[in-house]
């Protein structure tokens, strides 16, 4: 459990850094304000965005910790593929995986659509930061940046 906590902590730090330094996200994120949940099976991560910056990431938030507007849920295998530089077809995007894999979009989808450009880019940054589903695929130093 301590290892998993360390993985989560490292990922939170790395994903925050990658997002907040990403030229594309920062160029278009002036109004990127929302809070959403990434449900990755054994763990959940709540991403709180403000003016295009990661303001906070909650790891396994409690049911009433902080409200969120929508969630993106998929099994660990889907997220693991999603995070690869060349993911298998249908696990390569949130629309693709929702139409063809086990990914689900829930909550206020209008907020997702309002922020779709930035959310789409932010999800792709998981290919730079790594995905915190298994230690061997979550270490960012094993993966080249996608840009």
């Amino acid at each position, binding site marked *: 459990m301590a290892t998993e906590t360390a993985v989560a902590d490292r990922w939170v730090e790395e994903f925050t850094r990658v997002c907040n330094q990403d030229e594309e996200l920062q160029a278009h994120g002036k109004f990127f304000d929302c809070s959403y949940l990434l449900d990755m099976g054994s763990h959940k991560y709540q991403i709180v965005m403000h003016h295009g910056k990661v303001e906070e990431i909650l790891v396994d938030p409690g049911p009433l910790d902080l409200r969120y507007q929508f969630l993106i849920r998929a099994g660990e295998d889907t997220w693991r593929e999603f995070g690869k530089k060349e993911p298998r077809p249908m696990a390569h995007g949130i629309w*693709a995986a929702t139409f063809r894999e086990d990914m689900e979009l829930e909550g206020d989808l*209008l907020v997702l*659509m309002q922020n*779709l*450009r930035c959310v789409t880019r932010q999800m792709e940054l998981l290919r730079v930061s790594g995905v915190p589903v298994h230690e061997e695929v979550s270490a960012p130093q094993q993966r080249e940046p996608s840009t």
Partner: protein
Amino acid sequence: MAQFSPVTGHYVTIDVLGDECKVFYLENGEGTPLVCQHTAGCHNHQWRYLLEDEDITSNYRVIAYDLTNHGKSDPPTNKEWWKQEYRLTADWYTAFITSFCDALELEKPIFAGCSFGGNEALQLALRHPERFGGIVSIEGADYSPGFFLDWWQHPHANAAQVSASGVWDLMAPQSPDADRAATWFYYTQGSEAFRGDLYFYSVDHDLRGRLGEIDTSTCPLVLITGEYDYLTTPEDSQRTADGISGATFIKMEKIGHFPMSENYPVFKGYFQQALNQIQEESQAAMAR
């Protein structure tokens, strides 16, 4: 030193079921006419590389038009289109293409359409095989439900960004950033037509149970589909080809739903395969 493209643009006014349509098209090359249809909510710049590819234009007269309501082809000039909801139908779409080919006096052109153009390619194969020298259905299938969505025009969201980012995942992650970005950019320009185009794509186009009626004996039909296309998957196109006597299916690897625009070098090889297949089948048909 200024660089001028050999591609030229023209307008032609045609009648489509009573609608007066001033149609913009780009063209380059000499040889067999190759009429190219862009995808839903987009315009002819998706064919920008093909239009300037001498390997193609040395043998084909490439003609890429903007369908009415797209790009530089305005909505019909003789109707109050702004008082109606735009919904493209198979009847109108088919009439547009045959009227356009008549206006340019094209004899036995090859038609290549992608996505909703790939579906329309199948409509042409069913309705007018005698008019075409061959048909390439790119990312096409007998039926492709699920994309006639209100999100494309929802007033509470940025329709340009929803349309463009909504189709982002239709491209393969391996495709070059610059070409994916250009394709995204085109999609920010067509959100008003996008939803209505998808009425055809996901609702009005339904050839389930009718594939057996398609006659490929004089009009070869090739379907090509990218493996990263989550709307019309290779399995969908394979199933469709299997239902049509004489049709060929080619799966494209490491590419998605906008192949000619998102990664032309990869697309080109498969597209040439399709054109060669059509040429071989045409020659075999003539020899019979």
